[in-house]
């Protein structure tokens, strides 16, 4: 029973402890680190399934940290939406990690590899305090020269003959697995927390880990894109704090459920203040989600980082979308005082515009990785369009579409990496190139990914779009939604068909076939695994969309969430509210 009681916190502490353990094991063999990391990632799947099973009947599991009462202490809340996001993250993480362990990492596609410089040496271990004096940094293997190292793990020793000296993504620099686990820690925490400031803290954790992962392996273009990503997210964090501070100043609480109660009763003279704070918060979430005017950081960052990291980042924009859904379903529902339906004027039109511009980016892309990054922007447009329409059916469509698009985008990032290695120095650019070794398998996989991403039948992308279009039938934006979604869908088909024919058909015989690498089966297995998940979502579309509909219905009645967190009896909530007010009043001189 006690294990069940602590279920909601396990997905948060497991990656944290795994990360700390991996930090302690950093000088041990790579095989051991991989085993621990993989085990921790795999263990998240049954945990997420257990949470999914527990919350499927509509219960809210509330976990009070330190057993403090709800509005005073921090709570973790697991409901259908949180469990859904956790499961998506866990499945994605397993395949991304598998790819990072198995796939050989090239230095092509990142500009000429630079010789390690002292600046390089200082920069490599950033994010982990102790890494400041990180040891040698050659992509792999024993380094002949190098500063007197803190005992350098001999990364390949445990690998034996099968991996040989080939560098992989996780051996391309130090602390990959630590950062990976901490990233999962931040993601899971953000999905589970029920406290606005705590959400900020988990955002910072996942961002700091993402900075390290984004830059992992180094390279000029990566550093350049990383600098933009870091600076824009730091500004976003500052704005987040301004919004949180304003909300606290007006309401005296940060617990999301309590915030919903207090904001609904905001006196008229504070209406403008809470509206501006809520819109500022929306701006921050839109930045994380890469909504229209704030998406410019995404293509460069995602296109230049390493493939497994880009695949994991497919869930990162969804954190922004999740936060919008979670926070605004609570504080801007149907009866939320001055915030009622606050986002209606903004979210759907901006999402439509994101869809258009993202798709223009897809068409204009000159390389496959870049195209995949713009497809992430497109998917966030569709997702936020569904959330912005706001009806139960539309949110359900969005929730069905969310795991689908996460898995499919991740698969495209991983596949693009194999393709780019098989094409030699042309990498993934859309130019007529040599015929790839292994083109049949990769072409087949590309075909399936393209069908999924373009939203063609029979895969789940089509079902998600169909649900979205049907949900828009009674929306005032009907004409806009239908025309834009259908036209961008067509453009997506054209763009992906053009990419596929350029990469796979317009080929010539290679001058030097030996320089082209045939992708190993183990490299393509994670892609196939992710695609199987997409196929699974199609085959079991009935149960999955039912679950999404239940989740949407739960989100549309936030009173259950509030009751679960604050305790069901409304009069105690009122009493606590007046107590808070007197405390604040007493504090004001």
């Amino acid at each position, binding site marked *: 029973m006690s294990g069940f009681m602590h279920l909601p916190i396990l997905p948060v502490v497991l990656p944290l402890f795994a990360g700390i353990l991996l930090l302690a094991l950093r000088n041990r063999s790579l095989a051991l680190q991989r085993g621990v990391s993989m085990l921790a990632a795999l263990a998240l799947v049954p945990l997420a399934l257990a949470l999914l099973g527990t919350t499927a009947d509509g219960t809210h599991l509330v976990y009070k940290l330190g057993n403090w009462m709800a509005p005073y202490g921090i709570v973790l809340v697991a409901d259908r939406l949180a469990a859904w996001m956790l499961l998506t993250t866990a499945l994605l993480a397993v395949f991304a990690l598998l790819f990072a362990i198995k796939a050989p990492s090239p230095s092509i596609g990142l*500009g*000429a590899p*630079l010789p390690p*410089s*002292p*600046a*390089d040496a*200082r*920069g490599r271990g*950033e*994010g982990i305090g102790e890494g*400041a004096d990180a040891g040698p940094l050659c992509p792999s293997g024993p380094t002949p020269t190098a500063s007197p190292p803190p005992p350098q793990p001999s990364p390949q020793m445990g690998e034996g003959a099968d991996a040989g000296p080939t560098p992989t993504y996780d051996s391309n620099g130090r602390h990959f697995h630590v950062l990976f686990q901490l990233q999962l820690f931040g993601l899971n925490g953000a999905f589970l927390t029920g406290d606005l*400031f705590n959400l900020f*803290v988990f955002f*910072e954790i996942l961002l*700091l880990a993402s*900075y390290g992962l984004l*830059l992992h392996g*180094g*390279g*000029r*273009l990566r*550093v*350049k894109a*990383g*600098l*933009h990503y*870091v*600076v824009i997210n*730091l*500004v976003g*964090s*500052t704005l987040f*704090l*301004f919004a*949180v*501070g*304003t909300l*606290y*100043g007006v309401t*005296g609480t*940060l617990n999301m459920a309590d915030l919903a109660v207090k904001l609904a009763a905001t006196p008229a003279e504070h209406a403008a203040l809470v509206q501006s704070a809520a819109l500022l918060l929306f701006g921050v979430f839109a930045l994380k989600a890469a909504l229209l005017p704030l998406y410019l950081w995404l293509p460069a960052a995602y296109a230049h980082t390493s493939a497994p990291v880009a695949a994991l980042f497919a869930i990162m924009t969804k954190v922004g979308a999740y936060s919008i859904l979670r926070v605004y379903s609570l504080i801007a529902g149907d009866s939320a005082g001055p915030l009622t339906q606050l986002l209606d004027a903004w979210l759907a039109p901006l999402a439509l515009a994101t869809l258009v511009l993202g798709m223009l980016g897809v068409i204009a892309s000159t*390389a496959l990785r870049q195209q995949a990054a713009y497809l992430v922007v497109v998917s966030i447009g569709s997702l936020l369009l569904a959330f912005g329409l706001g009806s139960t059916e539309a949110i359900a469509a969005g929730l069905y579409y969310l795991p689908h698009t996460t898995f499919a985008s991740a698969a495209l990032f991983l596949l693009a990496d194999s393709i780019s290695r098989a094409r030699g120095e042309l990498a993934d*650019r859309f130019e007529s190139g040599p015929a790839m070794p292994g083109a049949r398998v990769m072409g087949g996989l590309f075909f399936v990914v393209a069908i999924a991403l373009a939203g063609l039948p029979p895969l789940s992308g089509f079902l998600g779009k169909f649900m979205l279009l049907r949900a828009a039938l009674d929306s005032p934006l009907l004409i806009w939604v239908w025309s834009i979604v259908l036209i961008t869908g067509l453009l997506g088909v054209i763009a992906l068909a053009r990419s596929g024919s350029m990469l796979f058909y317009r080929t010539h015989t290679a001058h030097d076939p030996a320089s082209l690498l045939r992708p190993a089966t183990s490299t393509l297995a994670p892609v196939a695994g992710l695609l199987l998940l997409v196929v699974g979502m199609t085959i079991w579309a009935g149960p999955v969309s039912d679950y999404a509909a239940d989740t949407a219905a739960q989100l549309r009645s936030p009173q259950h969430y509030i009751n679960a967190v604050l305790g069901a009896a409304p009069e105690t909530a009122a009493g606590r509210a007046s107590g808070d007010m007197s*405390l*604040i009043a*007493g*504090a*004001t*001189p």
Partner: protein
Amino acid sequence: MEALIAVVIGVLTAGGVFLALRGQTFPVVLGLTLLSYAVNLFLFIMGRLAIGVPPVISAAAEAYTDPLPQALVLTAIVISFGMTAFVIVLALKARGELGNDHVDGLQHEEDRNR
């Protein structure tokens, strides 16, 4: 007092925004630092201005100051401190790899066609 604090936060924010929009990495880092100072002060003030009153329960106290913003601002300071340290290291690394301290890392011919 309130007006003074408001002006201080406003000036810090304006300076931070101005510097963050510069083209070199060093002013950008300084701008981010000023922004984080501004937001820390802002968070702190959200507990209202109070002088000489305790944040914890005491028999002698006539009034209390709100302790929560103090805890929040402590967290925010630690986070922004760590982030600033990180961005400085990253800016140095970018300087080393790109050969200049422009935020866009200009003047690399071979990057153009990527």
